[in-house]
C-alpha cells in the first residue's frame, strides 16, 4: 500500500511540476500585460476618527454633521436601509427633533390608501427605516447611467479600508493623469464615468458628490464645511450606521479583557502554587544524599512535625 500511496504522491507532484513549468514558460514567452489598475490604483489615505482604537467613541457633533451631509447630498441617490429614524437618538437628537426629521424627509414611505387600497405614500415616522430614494433597482439604474448606487448602511464594513476608503473616494476625484493615457490609451475614462484612483477599477459612475466649500451649511460652532471636512464627517457618520454599537463593544471589551487578565493571573498563580508545593515537599529520585534533596526532606519533616 505504501508503494501505491507513494505513486499517488509522485503523480500529483509531477502534474504540479508540469503545471509549474508550463506556467513559467508562458510567463516567460508572453508576460501578462501591465494594467492601468495595477499602476494607478491608490490605497486609501490616512483618516483618524474619534471611533478609532480600542477606546474609541463617537464624536456626536461630527456624526450630526455627517448625517447632515448624507441628508442633503448622498440621500438623493443612496439608501440607508438598515437604519431607522429613531436610531438618530444615538447621535444626540431629541425625540421631537427626530419626529421633525422623519416628517420632513423628502422621500415618503410606501403605504396603502386605507380607503381605496391603492398603493400610496405617507410621511415617515420615527419607527420607519430611512426610505430609499428610488422605488426599485431598475429606477435607480435608470437615473444613474445604468449604475446602481449601493446602500450605504454597511459601506464602511463592506470595503477594504472602511471609513478611510470612503473619505479617500469622496476627495479623490481628479483628471486622468497624462502618463496613464500615454501608457494605456485604451483605458481612457468612458463617457459618463469619473476618474478616481481610489476606486478599484479607477472609473466609477458616481459623479463627484462633494464639490465646493459650503455645499452643506453647518450650524455655527462647527468647523468650516470644506470638501475635506464634509468627506470626513460623512465617513464618520457611515462608521456609525455600519456599527452603532461600536462604543458599547469597546467598553465591554475593556471590561472583559480586564476580567480575563485578572482571571489568567490568578489561575496562573494557583497553578504555580500547585507546582511549587509539589516541588518543595518532594524528594527527587536522583539520590537521597544529594544536598538539595536532604534539605527538602528536612524541611518536609519539620513541617510534618517529625524531628529531623
Amino acid at each position: 500500500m505504501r508503494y501505491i500511496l507513494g505513486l499517488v504522491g509522485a503523480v500529483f507532484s509531477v502534474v504540479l511540476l508540469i503545471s509549474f513549468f508550463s506556467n513559467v514558460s508562458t510567463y516567460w514567452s508572453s508576460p501578462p500585460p501591465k494594467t492601468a489598475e495595477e499602476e494607478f490604483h491608490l490605497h486609501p489615505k490616512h483618516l483618524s476618527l474619534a471611533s478609532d482604537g480600542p477606546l474609541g467613541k463617537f464624536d456626536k457633533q461630527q456624526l450630526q454633521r455627517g448625517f447632515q451631509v448624507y441628508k442633503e447630498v448622498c440621500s438623493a441617490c443612496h439608501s440607508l436601509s438598515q437604519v431607522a429614524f429613531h436610531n438618530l437618538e444615538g447621535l444626540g437628537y431629541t425625540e421631537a427633533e427626530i419626529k421633525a426629521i422623519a416628517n420632513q424627509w423628502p422621500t415618503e414611505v410606501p403605504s396603502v390608501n386605507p380607503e381605496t387600497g391603492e398603493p400610496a405614500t405617507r410621511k415617515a415616522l420615527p419607527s420607519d427605516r430611512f426610505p430609499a430614494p428610488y422605488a426599485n433597482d431598475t429606477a435607480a439604474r435608470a437615473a444613474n447611467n445604468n449604475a446602481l448606487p449601493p446602500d450605504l448602511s454597511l459601506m464602511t464594513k463592506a470595503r477594504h479600508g472602511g471609513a478611510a476608503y470612503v473619505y479617500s473616494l469622496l476627495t479623490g476625484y481628479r483628471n486622468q493623469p497624462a502618463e496613464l493615457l500615454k501608457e494605456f490609451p485604451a483605458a481612457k475614462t468612458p463617457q459618463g464615468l469619473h476618474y478616481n484612483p481610489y476606486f478599484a477599477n479607477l472609473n466609477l459612475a458616481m459623479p463627484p458628490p462633494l464639490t465646493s466649500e459650503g455645499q452643506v451649511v453647518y450650524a455655527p460652532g462647527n468647523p468650516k464645511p470644506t470638501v475635506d471636512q464634509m468627506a470626513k464627517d460623512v465617513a464618520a457618520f457611515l462608521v456609525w450606521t455600519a456599527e452603532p454599537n461600536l462604543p458599547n463593544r469597546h467598553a465591554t471589551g475593556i471590561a472583559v479583557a480586564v476580567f480575563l487578565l485578572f482571571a489568567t493571573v490568578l489561575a496562573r498563580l494557583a497553578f504555580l502554587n500547585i507546582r511549587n508545593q509539589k516541588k518543595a515537599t518532594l524528594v527527587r529520585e536522583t539520590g537521597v544524599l544529594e544536598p538539595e534533596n536532604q534539605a527538602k526532606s528536612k524541611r518536609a519533616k519539620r513541617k510534618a512535625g517529625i524531628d529531623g
Partner: protein
Amino acid sequence: MSFAWAKPYEPKAPLMRWLDERLPLPRLVYGAVGGGYPVPRNLNYWWNFGILAGLFLTIQIVTGIVLAMWYYASVDGAFNSVEHIMRDVNGGWALRYIHMNGASFFFIVTYIHIFRGLYYGSYKAPRELVWMLGLVIYLLMMATAFMGYVLPWGQMSYWGAQVITGFFSAFPLVGEPIRVWLLGGFAPDQAALTRFFSLHYLLPFVIAAVVILHIWALHIPGSSNPTGVDVKDEKDTLPFHPYYTAKDGWFAAGFLLVFSLFVYFLPNYLGHPDNYIPANPLATPAHIVPEWYFWPFYAILRAFTVDFILPAKLWGVLAMFSSILILFFLPWLDKSPVRSGNYRPVFKRFFWLLVIDVLILGYCGGAPATPLYVGLSQLAAAYYFAHFLIILPLVSAFERPLPLPDSITSAVLHHETEQGPAGTLATGRAAAE
C-alpha cells in the same frame, strides 16, 4: 478502564454507589472526564490544545443556538436578520462576533492540535484511531464552517457556495447531477440555504459525538507525551487533577483573553468585507476567496493549471480532497518506531519544512491568482504531497534516531527546569525515609 495503573472508579458517596450499581452512569462520566486518569507528568503546553478545542466547540454550540433563535433562513431575509441581531437584539452583536471569531479560533486551535500530533508522532500505534477520529472531526468541522459561512447570505456566502459546490461538477458525468442534487437547484438559492441551515445546526452535535469517541479512544492507551516513550509505571504519571486542571485552566483563561481582543477590538479582521454586501447572483466579486482556514486547500485546488490527461479542474479537486485523505494513512506511512520528533533529527527538519510549506500554501490561497502566487503554490503543493507520500516513508526507513530516554521520569530529571513538577514521583519513598 484502560491501562494497569489507572485508578478504577470507586464511588464514595452512598448515593453514587447506589446509582452506580443500577446504572453505571457515574462510572461512565468518571471515565470520560478522565477522573483517576493518570497523565504523563511531562506534557508541555502543546498538549493544552485538545481541551481548548473542546472549549471552542462548546462556545460555538452555545452561541449558535441563541443566534438561531433570531436568524431567519431565507434568501430575502437572512442578511437583514443578521443585521437585526447586530443592531437590535440585546447583546446580539457580541453573540455574533463571538460565533464568527469563535469559528476562526476553533480552527487555529485545531491546526495547532493537529501539528502537535504530527510532530510528536501521536498518530502512531496504539493511537491510530484517536488520530483518525480526529480527522473525521476535522472534516466535519470544515463542512460545518462552510455551511455556516453561507448563512448570512452575503456576497462571499453566495459565491463561496457557488465555487465550493462547483467542485463536484469537475467530475465527469455524475458531477453536475450531484451538484444540482446537493444544492436543490442549479445555483445556490432558497433550497440550498434552508438545507445548509439545517445541517449547520446538526453537524456540531455530530462533532460532539465524535469528540466523545476521540477521547474514549484516547483514554485506552492514555496520552502520549513529548518524549514519545510509553508510560512505564505510575511514577511516570500524575493524576489529572489538580496539576493539569490548573495548567489547562490558566492557559484557557489566557487564550480566551487573546480571543476576546479579536471579538471586541478586531471583530472583522479575520473576515472578508464583501460579506457585508447582500448576496447578488448577478454580480461576481472581483476575488472570490474562502475563509482563511481553507486557504491552503484553495491554493492546492488552483495550483493545477494544465490539462494533463485529465482536465486541470478535476486534478485540482482530486488533489484537494486527497490532501486531507492521505492523513488517514499517516500511521502506516511513517514506519519509524520512534514517535517524538525530538529524537528524530531528519524528520524534525522536514516537519518544519512542512509547516513553512503549509503557511506558504495558506498565503497563496488567500492571494489573487496571479502567476507569482500560482507558481508558488504549485511548488508548495508538490512538496506537500511529496512530504507525506514519499519523503516521510523514506525518512522513516533510513533515519537513525537519537537514543531515547529510558523512561519519562529519567527524561524529566534531565530537564527539570523546563518541564512540569519534577520530583513528584518519589512521594512514597520520601515519606518512608
